[in-house]
Protein backbone atom coordinates (compact mmCIF):
# COMPACT_ATOMS: atom_id res chain seq x y z
CA UNK A 1 0.00 0.00 0.00
CA UNK A 2 2.88 2.31 0.69
CA UNK A 3 4.39 1.38 -2.65
CA UNK A 4 4.11 4.88 -4.01
CA UNK A 5 5.82 6.57 -1.09
CA UNK A 6 8.37 3.85 -0.91
CA UNK A 7 9.37 4.87 -4.41
CA UNK A 8 12.68 6.55 -3.81
CA UNK A 9 11.78 9.46 -6.05
CA UNK A 10 9.51 11.38 -3.69
CA UNK A 11 11.78 10.97 -0.70
CA UNK A 12 14.89 11.74 -2.78
CA UNK A 13 13.32 14.97 -3.95
CA UNK A 14 12.55 16.00 -0.38
CA UNK A 15 16.05 15.07 0.73
CA UNK A 16 17.67 17.20 -1.95
CA UNK A 17 15.29 20.11 -1.31
CA UNK A 18 16.29 20.05 2.34
CA UNK A 19 19.99 19.98 1.47
CA UNK A 20 19.64 22.91 -0.93
CA UNK A 21 17.37 24.96 1.30
CA UNK A 22 20.12 27.16 2.85
CA UNK A 23 21.16 28.25 -0.65
CA UNK A 24 17.60 29.29 -1.47
CA UNK A 25 16.59 30.66 1.91
CA UNK A 26 18.10 34.08 1.36
CA UNK A 27 18.32 35.05 5.01
CA UNK A 28 18.92 33.63 8.47
CA UNK A 29 15.36 34.22 9.52
CA UNK A 30 14.07 31.65 7.03
CA UNK A 31 16.71 29.22 8.22
CA UNK A 32 15.55 29.70 11.78
CA UNK A 33 11.93 29.09 10.88
CA UNK A 34 12.85 25.96 8.96
CA UNK A 35 15.14 24.60 11.69
CA UNK A 36 12.40 25.08 14.29
CA UNK A 37 9.95 23.36 11.96
CA UNK A 38 12.36 20.40 11.67
CA UNK A 39 12.64 20.09 15.43
CA UNK A 40 8.88 19.98 15.81
CA UNK A 41 8.69 17.60 12.86
CA UNK A 42 10.91 15.15 14.76
CA UNK A 43 8.64 15.35 17.80
CA UNK A 44 5.55 15.00 15.60
CA UNK A 45 6.98 11.85 14.01
CA UNK A 46 7.16 10.40 17.50
CA UNK A 47 3.63 11.49 18.34
CA UNK A 48 2.39 9.87 15.17
CA UNK A 49 3.92 6.54 16.19
CA UNK A 50 1.78 6.30 19.30
CA UNK A 51 -1.29 8.09 17.93
CA UNK A 52 -1.33 7.35 14.21
CA UNK A 53 0.15 3.86 14.27
CA UNK A 54 -0.87 2.51 17.66
CA UNK A 55 -4.14 4.43 17.98
CA UNK A 56 -3.65 6.15 21.34
CA UNK A 57 -4.33 9.88 21.29
CA UNK A 58 -1.52 11.26 23.44
CA UNK A 59 -1.82 14.83 24.73
CA UNK A 60 1.34 14.84 26.88
CA UNK A 61 3.80 14.85 24.02
CA UNK A 62 4.85 18.48 24.53
CA UNK A 63 5.49 17.57 28.16
CA UNK A 64 7.94 14.86 27.14
CA UNK A 65 9.60 17.28 24.76
CA UNK A 66 10.02 19.61 27.71
CA UNK A 67 11.54 16.79 29.79
CA UNK A 68 14.22 16.29 27.13
CA UNK A 69 14.82 20.01 26.77
CA UNK A 70 15.05 20.64 30.50
CA UNK A 71 17.34 17.66 31.02
CA UNK A 72 19.76 19.16 28.55
CA UNK A 73 19.33 22.67 29.91
CA UNK A 74 19.81 21.72 33.56
CA UNK A 75 22.75 19.39 32.89
CA UNK A 76 24.66 21.84 30.71
CA UNK A 77 23.92 25.03 32.64
CA UNK A 78 23.80 23.92 36.28
CA UNK A 79 26.08 20.90 36.15
CA UNK A 80 28.31 21.88 33.26
CA UNK A 81 27.98 18.54 31.58
CA UNK A 82 29.25 18.60 27.98
CA UNK A 83 26.60 19.19 25.35
CA UNK A 84 26.59 15.83 23.60
CA UNK A 85 26.68 13.79 26.78
CA UNK A 86 23.75 15.85 28.06
CA UNK A 87 22.05 15.28 24.73
CA UNK A 88 22.27 11.52 25.10
CA UNK A 89 21.17 11.70 28.71
CA UNK A 90 18.16 13.79 27.64
CA UNK A 91 16.95 10.81 25.63
CA UNK A 92 17.59 8.43 28.50
CA UNK A 93 15.83 10.60 31.09
CA UNK A 94 12.82 11.15 28.85
CA UNK A 95 12.36 7.42 28.42
CA UNK A 96 12.84 6.87 32.17
CA UNK A 97 10.11 9.40 32.88
CA UNK A 98 7.97 7.97 30.11
CA UNK A 99 8.12 4.31 31.14
CA UNK A 100 6.16 4.47 34.41
CA UNK A 101 3.68 6.93 32.90
CA UNK A 102 3.37 4.69 29.89
CA UNK A 103 2.78 1.71 32.13
CA UNK A 104 -0.12 3.43 33.86
CA UNK A 105 -1.57 5.10 30.82
CA UNK A 106 -1.40 2.12 28.50
CA UNK A 107 -3.61 0.10 30.78
CA UNK A 108 -6.27 2.69 30.08
CA UNK A 109 -8.54 2.41 27.10
CA UNK A 110 -9.37 5.05 24.51
CA UNK A 111 -10.75 8.18 26.10
CA UNK A 112 -9.28 7.36 29.48
CA UNK A 113 -5.83 7.31 27.92
CA UNK A 114 -6.27 10.73 26.29
CA UNK A 115 -7.69 12.34 29.40
CA UNK A 116 -4.94 10.84 31.48
CA UNK A 117 -2.23 12.16 29.17
CA UNK A 118 -3.89 15.59 29.17
CA UNK A 119 -3.53 15.55 32.94
CA UNK A 120 0.06 14.30 32.74
CA UNK A 121 0.91 17.18 30.40
CA UNK A 122 -0.62 19.61 32.90
CA UNK A 123 1.35 18.03 35.77
CA UNK A 124 4.59 18.41 33.83
CA UNK A 125 3.82 22.05 33.13
CA UNK A 126 3.00 22.73 36.80
CA UNK A 127 6.05 20.86 38.07
CA UNK A 128 8.36 22.80 35.76
CA UNK A 129 6.76 26.04 36.87
CA UNK A 130 6.84 25.30 40.60
CA UNK A 131 10.03 23.27 41.16
CA UNK A 132 12.21 26.35 41.09
CA UNK A 133 15.33 24.84 42.64
CA UNK A 134 15.60 22.44 39.72
CA UNK A 135 13.95 24.16 36.77
CA UNK A 136 14.40 27.86 37.64
CA UNK A 137 10.58 28.19 37.65
CA UNK A 138 8.96 30.83 35.51
CA UNK A 139 12.28 32.62 34.98
CA UNK A 140 13.39 29.76 32.80
CA UNK A 141 16.86 28.51 31.97
CA UNK A 142 19.10 30.96 30.16
CA UNK A 143 22.48 30.63 28.54
CA UNK A 144 22.21 27.05 27.32
CA UNK A 145 25.40 26.36 25.35
CA UNK A 146 25.24 25.79 21.61
CA UNK A 147 26.06 22.27 20.39
CA UNK A 148 29.81 21.79 20.72
CA UNK A 149 31.91 20.94 17.69
CA UNK A 150 32.25 17.32 16.64
CA UNK A 151 35.73 16.98 15.19
CA UNK A 152 35.95 19.43 12.28
CA UNK A 153 32.22 20.17 12.36
CA UNK A 154 31.35 23.21 14.42
CA UNK A 155 27.85 24.55 14.94
CA UNK A 156 28.29 28.27 15.35
CA UNK A 157 26.46 29.60 12.28
CA UNK A 158 22.76 29.36 11.42
CA UNK A 159 23.65 27.28 8.36
CA UNK A 160 25.67 24.72 10.31
CA UNK A 161 22.95 24.48 12.96
CA UNK A 162 20.43 24.03 10.17
CA UNK A 163 22.36 21.07 8.80
CA UNK A 164 22.73 19.58 12.25
CA UNK A 165 18.99 19.69 12.84
CA UNK A 166 18.41 18.49 9.30
CA UNK A 167 20.69 15.51 9.90
CA UNK A 168 18.65 14.51 12.93
CA UNK A 169 15.41 14.91 11.01
CA UNK A 170 16.64 12.71 8.15
CA UNK A 171 17.89 10.14 10.62
CA UNK A 172 14.58 10.30 12.49
CA UNK A 173 12.55 9.80 9.32
CA UNK A 174 14.78 6.94 8.21
CA UNK A 175 14.47 5.23 11.59
CA UNK A 176 10.71 5.77 11.63
CA UNK A 177 10.33 4.17 8.23
CA UNK A 178 12.38 1.22 9.42
CA UNK A 179 10.26 0.90 12.54
CA UNK A 180 6.98 1.15 10.67
CA UNK A 181 8.01 -1.42 8.09
CA UNK A 182 9.34 -3.88 10.62
CA UNK A 183 7.41 -6.67 12.27
CA UNK A 184 7.15 -4.43 15.31
CA UNK A 185 5.53 -1.65 13.30
CA UNK A 186 3.04 -4.09 11.81
CA UNK A 187 2.24 -5.28 15.30
CA UNK A 188 1.54 -1.69 16.39
CA UNK A 189 -0.90 -1.29 13.51
CA UNK A 190 -2.56 -4.58 14.38
CA UNK A 191 -3.10 -3.23 17.90
CA UNK A 192 -4.60 -0.03 16.51
CA UNK A 193 -6.97 -1.93 14.27
CA UNK A 194 -8.19 -4.25 16.97
CA UNK A 195 -6.38 -4.85 20.21
CA UNK A 196 -8.44 -7.82 21.32
CA UNK A 197 -7.94 -9.56 18.00
CA UNK A 198 -4.21 -8.84 18.13
CA UNK A 199 -4.06 -10.26 21.62
CA UNK A 200 -5.93 -13.36 20.51
CA UNK A 201 -3.28 -13.84 17.84
CA UNK A 202 -0.63 -13.91 20.52
CA UNK A 203 0.53 -10.28 20.53
CA UNK A 204 1.76 -9.17 23.91
CA UNK A 205 -0.29 -5.98 24.15
CA UNK A 206 1.42 -4.36 27.10
CA UNK A 207 4.94 -4.98 25.84
CA UNK A 208 4.22 -3.68 22.36
CA UNK A 209 2.27 -0.64 23.51
CA UNK A 210 5.03 0.19 25.95
CA UNK A 211 7.57 -0.19 23.16
CA UNK A 212 5.61 2.19 20.91
CA UNK A 213 5.18 4.62 23.78
CA UNK A 214 8.89 4.59 24.67
CA UNK A 215 9.99 5.10 21.08
CA UNK A 216 7.48 7.89 20.68
CA UNK A 217 8.69 9.57 23.86
CA UNK A 218 12.32 9.11 22.79
CA UNK A 219 11.62 11.14 19.65
CA UNK A 220 10.06 13.85 21.82
CA UNK A 221 13.03 13.82 24.19
CA UNK A 222 15.62 14.24 21.46
CA UNK A 223 13.51 16.88 19.73
CA UNK A 224 13.32 18.73 23.03
CA UNK A 225 17.08 18.50 23.55
CA UNK A 226 17.66 19.83 20.03
CA UNK A 227 15.21 22.62 20.75
CA UNK A 228 17.12 23.57 23.89
CA UNK A 229 20.42 23.63 21.99
CA UNK A 230 18.87 25.60 19.17
CA UNK A 231 16.81 28.23 21.02
CA UNK A 232 19.21 28.23 24.04
CA UNK A 233 16.50 29.42 26.37
CA UNK A 234 13.80 27.40 28.10
CA UNK A 235 10.58 28.37 29.87
CA UNK A 236 7.70 26.29 31.24
CA UNK A 237 5.62 27.21 28.19
CA UNK A 238 7.35 24.49 26.21
CA UNK A 239 5.35 21.91 28.18
CA UNK A 240 2.13 23.87 27.75
CA UNK A 241 -0.94 22.57 26.01
CA UNK A 242 -0.48 24.83 23.00
CA UNK A 243 2.57 22.94 21.76
CA UNK A 244 0.79 19.63 22.19
CA UNK A 245 -2.11 21.03 20.16
CA UNK A 246 0.29 22.35 17.51
CA UNK A 247 1.76 18.90 17.01
CA UNK A 248 -1.69 17.35 16.89
CA UNK A 249 -2.54 19.82 14.17
CA UNK A 250 0.54 18.99 12.09
CA UNK A 251 -0.27 15.33 12.39
CA UNK A 252 -3.93 15.66 11.41
CA UNK A 253 -3.33 18.05 8.54
CA UNK A 254 -0.71 15.75 7.05
CA UNK A 255 -2.46 12.51 7.84
CA UNK A 256 -2.42 10.06 10.72
CA UNK A 257 -0.56 6.85 10.34
CA UNK A 258 1.77 7.80 7.51
CA UNK A 259 5.39 8.89 7.87
CA UNK A 260 5.22 11.56 5.19
CA UNK A 261 1.98 13.19 6.40
CA UNK A 262 3.01 14.51 9.81
CA UNK A 263 6.35 15.49 8.33
CA UNK A 264 4.71 17.63 5.64
CA UNK A 265 2.23 19.03 8.15
CA UNK A 266 5.03 20.07 10.50
CA UNK A 267 6.98 21.72 7.68
CA UNK A 268 3.99 23.38 6.04
CA UNK A 269 1.97 24.89 8.88
CA UNK A 270 4.73 27.10 10.37
CA UNK A 271 5.26 28.65 6.95
CA UNK A 272 1.57 29.31 6.52
CA UNK A 273 1.63 30.96 9.92
CA UNK A 274 4.63 33.05 8.88
CA UNK A 275 2.84 34.34 5.84
CA UNK A 276 -0.26 35.12 7.84
CA UNK A 277 1.85 37.39 10.05
CA UNK A 278 -1.11 39.44 11.22
CA UNK A 279 -2.68 36.21 12.40
CA UNK A 280 0.28 34.90 14.43
CA UNK A 281 -1.54 35.15 17.70
CA UNK A 282 -4.92 34.29 16.28
CA UNK A 283 -3.79 31.48 14.00
CA UNK A 284 -6.14 29.10 15.73
CA UNK A 285 -9.11 31.15 14.55
CA UNK A 286 -8.33 29.60 11.18
CA UNK A 287 -6.58 26.38 12.17
CA UNK A 288 -9.23 25.38 14.71
CA UNK A 289 -12.00 25.21 12.09
CA UNK A 290 -9.54 23.68 9.61
CA UNK A 291 -8.87 20.90 12.09
CA UNK A 292 -12.60 20.29 12.53
CA UNK A 293 -13.19 20.40 8.79
CA UNK A 294 -10.41 17.91 8.11
CA UNK A 295 -11.57 15.52 10.78
CA UNK A 296 -15.11 15.57 9.39
CA UNK A 297 -14.48 15.62 5.66
CA UNK A 298 -10.90 14.41 5.15
CA UNK A 299 -10.41 12.12 8.13
CA UNK A 300 -7.25 10.59 6.71
CA UNK A 301 -5.47 13.91 6.20
CA UNK A 302 -3.82 15.04 3.00
CA UNK A 303 -1.27 12.29 2.59
CA UNK A 304 -3.51 9.62 4.05
CA UNK A 305 -6.23 10.33 1.50
CA UNK A 306 -3.72 10.31 -1.27
CA UNK A 307 -2.26 7.00 -0.13
CA UNK A 308 -5.73 5.49 0.19
CA UNK A 309 -6.66 6.55 -3.33
CA UNK A 310 -3.40 5.19 -4.73
CA UNK A 311 -3.93 1.95 -2.96
CA UNK A 312 -7.48 1.68 -4.25
CA UNK A 313 -6.42 2.36 -7.80
CA UNK A 314 -3.63 -0.16 -7.50
CA UNK A 315 -5.86 -2.87 -6.14
CA UNK A 316 -8.57 -2.08 -8.72
CA UNK A 317 -6.01 -2.49 -11.44
CA UNK A 318 -4.66 -5.67 -9.94
CA UNK A 319 -8.05 -7.28 -9.44
CA UNK A 320 -9.66 -5.71 -12.45
CA UNK A 321 -12.69 -4.81 -10.39
CA UNK A 322 -13.95 -2.71 -7.50
CA UNK A 323 -12.37 -3.43 -4.18
CA UNK A 324 -14.89 -2.09 -1.69
CA UNK A 325 -13.30 -3.64 1.35
CA UNK A 326 -10.29 -1.35 1.08
CA UNK A 327 -12.27 1.77 1.81
CA UNK A 328 -13.89 0.55 4.98
CA UNK A 329 -10.63 -0.95 6.15
CA UNK A 330 -8.99 2.44 5.76
CA UNK A 331 -11.70 4.10 7.78
CA UNK A 332 -11.39 1.80 10.70
CA UNK A 333 -7.65 2.19 10.34
CA UNK A 334 -7.75 5.81 11.25
CA UNK A 335 -10.45 5.53 13.83
CA UNK A 336 -9.91 3.71 17.00
CA UNK A 337 -12.21 0.86 17.61
CA UNK A 338 -13.25 1.35 21.18
CA UNK A 339 -16.42 3.26 20.25
CA UNK A 340 -18.87 0.66 21.32
CA UNK A 341 -17.26 0.03 24.63
CA UNK A 342 -15.87 3.35 25.91
Amino acid at each position, binding site marked *: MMKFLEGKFGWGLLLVAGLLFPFMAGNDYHLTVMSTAYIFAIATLGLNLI*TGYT*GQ*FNLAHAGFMAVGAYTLGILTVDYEVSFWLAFLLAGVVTVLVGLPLGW*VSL*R*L*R*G*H*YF*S*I*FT*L*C*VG*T*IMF*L*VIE*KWESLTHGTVGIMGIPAPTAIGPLSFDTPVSIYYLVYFFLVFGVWMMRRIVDSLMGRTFMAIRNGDELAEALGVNLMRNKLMAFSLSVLYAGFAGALYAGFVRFLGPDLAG*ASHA*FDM*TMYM*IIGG*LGTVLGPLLGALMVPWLTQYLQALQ*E*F*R*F*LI*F*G*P*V*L*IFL*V*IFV*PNGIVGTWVARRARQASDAALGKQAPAKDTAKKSD*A*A*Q*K*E*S*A*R*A
Partner: protein
Amino acid sequence: MDIFLQQVLNGLTLGGIYSLVALGLTLVYGILHVPNFAHGAFYMVGAFVALKLMTGWEVNYWIAMIGAAGVVAVIGALSERLVFRPLRNHSGLHPMIAAIGLLLFLEAGAQALWGADFLRMPTPFSGIIEVAGITAPVQRLMIIAGAFTLMAALQIFLTRTVAGSTIVAMAQNRDGASLVGIDANRVAMLTFGISGALAAVAATLYAPINLVYPAMGHLVITKAFVIIILGGMGSVPGAIVGGLIIGFAESFGAYYISTDYKDIISFVLLVVILSLRPQGLFTNGAR
Protein backbone atom coordinates in the same frame (compact mmCIF):
# COMPACT_ATOMS: atom_id res chain seq x y z
CA MET B 1 -10.39 24.16 64.74
CA ASP B 2 -11.20 27.48 63.10
CA ILE B 3 -8.64 26.78 60.47
CA PHE B 4 -10.20 23.42 59.90
CA LEU B 5 -13.65 24.94 59.38
CA GLN B 6 -12.13 27.58 57.14
CA GLN B 7 -10.74 24.81 54.95
CA VAL B 8 -14.12 23.10 54.93
CA LEU B 9 -15.62 26.33 53.63
CA ASN B 10 -12.94 26.60 50.94
CA GLY B 11 -13.42 22.97 50.02
CA LEU B 12 -17.15 23.46 49.60
CA THR B 13 -16.57 26.52 47.41
CA LEU B 14 -14.08 24.82 45.14
CA GLY B 15 -16.03 21.57 45.19
CA GLY B 16 -19.24 23.33 44.19
CA ILE B 17 -17.61 24.98 41.18
CA TYR B 18 -15.78 21.84 40.10
CA SER B 19 -18.96 19.80 40.42
CA LEU B 20 -20.89 22.19 38.18
CA VAL B 21 -18.22 22.07 35.49
CA ALA B 22 -17.85 18.31 35.80
CA LEU B 23 -21.65 17.84 35.62
CA GLY B 24 -21.77 19.41 32.16
CA LEU B 25 -18.87 17.30 31.04
CA THR B 26 -20.34 14.10 32.39
CA LEU B 27 -23.79 14.75 30.86
CA VAL B 28 -22.26 15.17 27.41
CA TYR B 29 -20.08 12.11 27.90
CA GLY B 30 -23.07 10.08 28.98
CA ILE B 31 -24.97 10.96 25.81
CA LEU B 32 -22.33 11.14 23.13
CA HIS B 33 -19.35 9.27 24.59
CA VAL B 34 -17.12 12.19 23.69
CA PRO B 35 -14.68 13.74 26.15
CA ASN B 36 -15.46 17.34 25.30
CA PHE B 37 -12.07 19.03 25.57
CA ALA B 38 -13.76 22.30 24.56
CA HIS B 39 -15.76 22.38 27.79
CA GLY B 40 -13.08 24.52 29.47
CA ALA B 41 -13.48 27.02 26.64
CA PHE B 42 -17.24 27.11 27.30
CA TYR B 43 -16.40 27.96 30.90
CA MET B 44 -14.01 30.72 29.80
CA VAL B 45 -16.49 32.20 27.31
CA GLY B 46 -19.14 32.22 30.04
CA ALA B 47 -16.90 34.28 32.33
CA PHE B 48 -16.08 36.75 29.56
CA VAL B 49 -19.69 37.22 28.46
CA ALA B 50 -20.83 37.84 32.03
CA LEU B 51 -17.96 40.26 32.63
CA LYS B 52 -18.63 42.18 29.43
CA LEU B 53 -22.34 42.37 30.18
CA MET B 54 -21.56 43.79 33.60
CA THR B 55 -18.87 46.27 32.64
CA GLY B 56 -20.03 47.21 29.15
CA TRP B 57 -23.80 47.20 29.55
CA GLU B 58 -23.85 47.73 33.30
CA VAL B 59 -26.16 44.82 33.77
CA ASN B 60 -26.90 43.39 37.20
CA TYR B 61 -24.78 40.40 38.29
CA TRP B 62 -27.62 37.89 38.17
CA ILE B 63 -28.88 39.04 34.77
CA ALA B 64 -25.30 38.85 33.50
CA MET B 65 -25.13 35.27 34.77
CA ILE B 66 -28.35 34.35 32.97
CA GLY B 67 -27.12 36.12 29.83
CA ALA B 68 -23.83 34.23 29.92
CA ALA B 69 -25.66 30.94 30.48
CA GLY B 70 -27.87 31.67 27.47
CA VAL B 71 -25.00 32.63 25.16
CA VAL B 72 -22.89 29.62 26.09
CA ALA B 73 -25.89 27.30 25.85
CA VAL B 74 -26.34 28.45 22.27
CA ILE B 75 -22.63 27.98 21.53
CA GLY B 76 -22.85 24.50 23.04
CA ALA B 77 -25.90 23.52 21.01
CA LEU B 78 -24.35 24.93 17.84
CA SER B 79 -21.13 23.02 18.37
CA GLU B 80 -23.09 19.81 18.78
CA ARG B 81 -24.89 20.51 15.53
CA LEU B 82 -21.87 21.64 13.50
CA VAL B 83 -18.95 19.73 14.98
CA PHE B 84 -20.01 16.63 16.86
CA ARG B 85 -23.08 15.50 14.95
CA PRO B 86 -21.23 14.92 11.67
CA LEU B 87 -18.75 12.84 13.66
CA ARG B 88 -21.27 10.71 15.51
CA ASN B 89 -20.40 7.57 13.59
CA HIS B 90 -16.68 8.14 13.74
CA SER B 91 -15.33 6.73 16.91
CA GLY B 92 -12.26 7.21 19.00
CA LEU B 93 -9.75 9.78 17.86
CA HIS B 94 -11.76 11.96 15.55
CA PRO B 95 -14.32 13.53 17.90
CA MET B 96 -11.54 14.22 20.39
CA ILE B 97 -9.47 16.00 17.77
CA ALA B 98 -12.51 17.98 16.64
CA ALA B 99 -13.11 18.99 20.25
CA ILE B 100 -9.58 20.31 20.37
CA GLY B 101 -10.19 22.25 17.15
CA LEU B 102 -13.23 23.80 18.80
CA LEU B 103 -11.23 24.63 21.92
CA LEU B 104 -8.51 26.33 19.88
CA PHE B 105 -11.10 28.29 17.91
CA LEU B 106 -12.97 29.53 20.98
CA GLU B 107 -9.78 30.54 22.77
CA ALA B 108 -8.36 32.38 19.80
CA GLY B 109 -11.77 33.99 19.30
CA ALA B 110 -11.94 35.19 22.90
CA GLN B 111 -8.44 36.57 22.63
CA ALA B 112 -9.21 38.36 19.37
CA LEU B 113 -12.41 39.86 20.75
CA TRP B 114 -11.43 40.66 24.30
CA GLY B 115 -7.62 40.58 24.46
CA ALA B 116 -5.24 38.40 26.44
CA ASP B 117 -5.22 40.49 29.62
CA PHE B 118 -6.13 39.28 33.07
CA LEU B 119 -9.39 40.97 34.06
CA ARG B 120 -11.18 41.25 37.36
CA MET B 121 -14.90 40.75 37.68
CA PRO B 122 -16.85 43.06 40.01
CA THR B 123 -19.42 41.55 42.34
CA PRO B 124 -22.28 42.97 44.37
CA PHE B 125 -21.31 40.67 47.24
CA SER B 126 -18.11 42.09 48.62
CA GLY B 127 -18.96 41.81 52.30
CA ILE B 128 -17.58 39.43 54.88
CA ILE B 129 -19.64 37.59 57.45
CA GLU B 130 -18.12 36.46 60.70
CA VAL B 131 -19.75 33.51 62.42
CA ALA B 132 -18.23 31.80 65.43
CA GLY B 133 -14.73 32.83 64.57
CA ILE B 134 -14.79 31.89 60.89
CA THR B 135 -14.63 34.69 58.39
CA ALA B 136 -16.69 33.95 55.31
CA PRO B 137 -16.63 36.25 52.30
CA VAL B 138 -20.21 36.57 51.06
CA GLN B 139 -19.19 35.68 47.51
CA ARG B 140 -17.95 32.30 48.70
CA LEU B 141 -21.22 31.64 50.46
CA MET B 142 -23.02 32.68 47.28
CA ILE B 143 -20.97 30.20 45.32
CA ILE B 144 -21.84 27.38 47.68
CA ALA B 145 -25.53 28.29 47.75
CA GLY B 146 -25.68 28.86 43.97
CA ALA B 147 -23.83 25.70 43.03
CA PHE B 148 -25.84 23.42 45.25
CA THR B 149 -29.16 25.00 44.29
CA LEU B 150 -28.30 24.45 40.65
CA MET B 151 -27.31 20.84 41.27
CA ALA B 152 -30.62 20.22 43.00
CA ALA B 153 -32.46 21.91 40.13
CA LEU B 154 -30.62 19.75 37.61
CA GLN B 155 -31.44 16.62 39.56
CA ILE B 156 -35.13 17.59 39.58
CA PHE B 157 -35.01 18.40 35.88
CA LEU B 158 -33.46 15.05 35.02
CA THR B 159 -35.79 12.96 37.15
CA ARG B 160 -39.10 14.84 37.08
CA THR B 161 -39.46 16.34 33.61
CA VAL B 162 -39.99 14.68 30.26
CA ALA B 163 -37.10 16.52 28.61
CA GLY B 164 -34.81 15.49 31.44
CA SER B 165 -35.94 11.88 31.28
CA THR B 166 -35.12 11.73 27.58
CA ILE B 167 -31.53 12.68 28.43
CA VAL B 168 -31.34 9.98 31.07
CA ALA B 169 -32.95 7.47 28.72
CA MET B 170 -30.48 8.20 25.96
CA ALA B 171 -27.54 7.98 28.34
CA GLN B 172 -28.78 4.58 29.49
CA ASN B 173 -29.52 3.05 26.15
CA ARG B 174 -29.30 4.83 22.86
CA ASP B 175 -31.12 2.24 20.77
CA GLY B 176 -33.84 1.79 23.33
CA ALA B 177 -34.36 5.54 23.45
CA SER B 178 -34.77 5.82 19.71
CA LEU B 179 -37.14 2.83 19.73
CA VAL B 180 -39.56 4.71 21.96
CA GLY B 181 -39.40 7.72 19.65
CA ILE B 182 -36.82 9.94 21.32
CA ASP B 183 -35.18 12.26 18.80
CA ALA B 184 -31.47 11.68 19.39
CA ASN B 185 -30.43 14.89 17.67
CA ARG B 186 -32.68 17.07 19.79
CA VAL B 187 -31.57 15.43 22.99
CA ALA B 188 -27.91 15.80 22.08
CA MET B 189 -28.34 19.51 21.35
CA LEU B 190 -30.30 19.98 24.56
CA THR B 191 -27.58 18.22 26.54
CA PHE B 192 -24.85 20.37 25.03
CA GLY B 193 -26.93 23.46 25.78
CA ILE B 194 -27.37 22.50 29.43
CA SER B 195 -23.73 21.55 29.70
CA GLY B 196 -22.67 24.96 28.35
CA ALA B 197 -25.08 26.81 30.64
CA LEU B 198 -23.75 24.96 33.71
CA ALA B 199 -20.18 25.87 32.76
CA ALA B 200 -21.13 29.53 32.25
CA VAL B 201 -22.89 29.76 35.62
CA ALA B 202 -19.94 28.10 37.35
CA ALA B 203 -17.59 30.57 35.70
CA THR B 204 -19.71 33.59 36.65
CA LEU B 205 -19.93 32.40 40.26
CA TYR B 206 -16.22 31.73 40.56
CA ALA B 207 -14.79 34.63 38.51
CA PRO B 208 -15.14 37.33 41.20
CA ILE B 209 -12.68 35.50 43.48
CA ASN B 210 -10.41 34.64 40.58
CA LEU B 211 -9.39 36.28 37.33
CA VAL B 212 -10.83 36.26 33.82
CA TYR B 213 -8.46 35.50 30.92
CA PRO B 214 -8.51 33.36 27.75
CA ALA B 215 -6.62 30.39 29.22
CA MET B 216 -8.63 30.31 32.47
CA GLY B 217 -10.42 27.11 31.48
CA HIS B 218 -7.32 24.90 31.20
CA LEU B 219 -6.81 23.92 34.81
CA VAL B 220 -10.53 23.78 35.56
CA ILE B 221 -11.24 21.44 32.68
CA THR B 222 -8.38 19.07 33.48
CA LYS B 223 -9.64 18.90 37.04
CA ALA B 224 -13.18 18.29 35.79
CA PHE B 225 -11.83 15.33 33.83
CA VAL B 226 -10.14 14.00 36.94
CA ILE B 227 -13.48 14.33 38.71
CA ILE B 228 -15.51 12.44 36.14
CA ILE B 229 -12.94 9.68 36.03
CA LEU B 230 -13.12 9.51 39.82
CA GLY B 231 -16.88 9.52 39.81
CA GLY B 232 -17.39 7.32 36.77
CA MET B 233 -17.72 8.82 33.30
CA GLY B 234 -21.34 9.73 32.64
CA SER B 235 -22.50 9.49 36.23
CA VAL B 236 -24.29 12.56 37.65
CA PRO B 237 -23.95 11.75 41.37
CA GLY B 238 -20.36 10.70 40.63
CA ALA B 239 -19.58 14.16 39.29
CA ILE B 240 -20.96 15.83 42.41
CA VAL B 241 -19.17 13.53 44.85
CA GLY B 242 -15.98 13.64 42.78
CA GLY B 243 -16.12 17.44 42.67
CA LEU B 244 -16.38 17.62 46.44
CA ILE B 245 -13.55 15.12 46.93
CA ILE B 246 -11.24 17.17 44.72
CA GLY B 247 -12.40 20.45 46.27
CA PHE B 248 -11.61 19.21 49.78
CA ALA B 249 -8.37 17.53 48.73
CA GLU B 250 -7.22 20.84 47.30
CA SER B 251 -8.22 23.13 50.12
CA PHE B 252 -6.76 20.85 52.79
CA GLY B 253 -3.74 20.06 50.63
CA ALA B 254 -3.06 23.75 50.15
CA TYR B 255 -3.04 24.25 53.89
CA TYR B 256 -1.37 21.10 55.17
CA ILE B 257 1.01 20.38 52.28
CA SER B 258 1.82 23.37 50.12
CA THR B 259 -0.03 26.15 48.31
CA ASP B 260 2.38 25.87 45.40
CA TYR B 261 1.48 22.28 44.73
CA LYS B 262 -2.26 22.42 45.41
CA ASP B 263 -3.09 22.21 41.71
CA ILE B 264 -1.03 19.06 41.36
CA ILE B 265 -2.78 17.21 44.19
CA SER B 266 -5.83 16.26 42.16
CA PHE B 267 -3.68 14.92 39.33
CA VAL B 268 -1.52 12.89 41.65
CA LEU B 269 -4.72 11.47 43.09
CA LEU B 270 -5.77 10.53 39.58
CA VAL B 271 -2.47 8.83 38.77
CA VAL B 272 -2.63 6.81 41.97
CA ILE B 273 -6.25 5.80 41.43
CA LEU B 274 -5.80 4.86 37.80
CA SER B 275 -2.69 2.81 38.57
CA LEU B 276 -4.76 0.79 40.98
CA ARG B 277 -8.10 0.80 39.18
CA PRO B 278 -7.72 1.56 35.46
CA GLN B 279 -11.50 1.68 35.03
CA GLY B 280 -12.09 4.53 37.50
CA LEU B 281 -13.04 4.50 41.12
CA PHE B 282 -16.79 3.97 41.05
CA THR B 283 -17.17 2.15 37.79
CA ASN B 284 -17.60 -1.56 38.04
CA GLY B 285 -16.67 -3.86 35.23
CA ALA B 286 -15.01 -2.92 31.98
CA ARG B 287 -16.21 0.08 30.07
